[in-house]
């Protein structure tokens, strides 16, 4: 174990001026500080214990946060799925049902209740007609309705003028 003299002799050989200075720091503390410090330390320890009991910082850890988020999303989707699986059908009263049965079935009523996409799918594909042939047909027949439809279907002003 080194003696204090050894440390002094060491410093004398390296920095003689420094060795002559008193080895005291000139920092000070308030009177009674060290009397109070143990109490402050115990208070902080107890405060730390209490904080740890309610510490949810673990939930912010990436692994836990991702797991919690995934569970939450799963619950949301499951709820959404279950609630929409058996949508509450519109409950019709007996009077409403009777009214529907009594309504005449017309082409318009059928068309009104058919989805436009389904109707389009059911329609036969129009015969592929070359644009030139189409123009010739229009000229030949000069059908006003057909002309209107042609104008609506085409942006080409030149073509329209040509037809006119």
């Amino acid at each position, binding site marked *: 174990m080194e003696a204090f003299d050894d440390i002094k002799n060491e410093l004398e050989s390296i920095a003689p001026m*420094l060795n002559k*200075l008193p080895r005291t720091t000139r920092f000070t503390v308030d009177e009674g500080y060290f009397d109070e410090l143990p109490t402050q*330390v115990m208070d902080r*320890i107890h405060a730390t214990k209490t904080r740890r009991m309610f510490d949810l910082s673990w939930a912010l850890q990436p692994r836990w946060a991702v797991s919690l988020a995934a569970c939450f999303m799963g619950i949301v989707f499951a709820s959404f799925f279950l609630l929409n699986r058996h949508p509450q059908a519109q409950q019709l009263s007996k009077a409403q049902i009777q009214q529907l049965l009594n309504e005449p079935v017309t082409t318009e009523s059928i068309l009104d209740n058919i989805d436009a996409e389904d109707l389009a799918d059911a329609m036969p594909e129009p015969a592929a007609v070359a644009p030139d042939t189409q123009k010739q047909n229009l000229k030949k027949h000069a059908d006003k309705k057909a002309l209107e439809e042609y104008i609506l279907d085409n942006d080409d002003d030149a073509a329209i003028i040509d037809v006119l």
Partner: protein
Amino acid sequence: MSLSDEEILARFKEKDGQNYAFNLLVRKYQQKLYWVIRRLVVDHDDANDLIQNVWVKVWQNLDSFKAESQLYTWLYRICANEALTFLNKKKKRFFLNLEDVDAELSEKVEHDPAMTGDQIEIKLQKAIISLPEKQRLVFQMRYYDEMPYEEMSHVLNTSVGALKASYHHAAKKIEVFLTTRD
């Protein structure tokens, strides 16, 4: 009533003796450890905050302390790490490089009302602050705490040879600072 470290540790392990034993431990080492930190960070409020953090860590880890080193060595290491971490964080938080942090500490040394002493002692403190952090710690451990190199080696996990070289460099730099600067 002054107990040895072994007695304090034994009392701490007893279910009903924790608070009493820990109180004894704090009173035994509080001043030494406080000054270790205070000399590094200069400001009392910072030192006060850090020393309390140190004791909280001691409380939390004292059960797992293995007597492979002296208790004081272990406590000193916690203090040193706490102070160095604080200085590093301070440097990063304010986007200051180390010289700027040192300038701030130097200002505190010069204008701190809790700092007494004549000009040469203020100059000495400024000289110490001008050292790199770890070199400053090595110097203070040897110069103020008169710690043997072997014990310093346990605290800092650095070889005795490296510590000797570091201390010699530090002492020489301070000597030059004292003799050349106004």
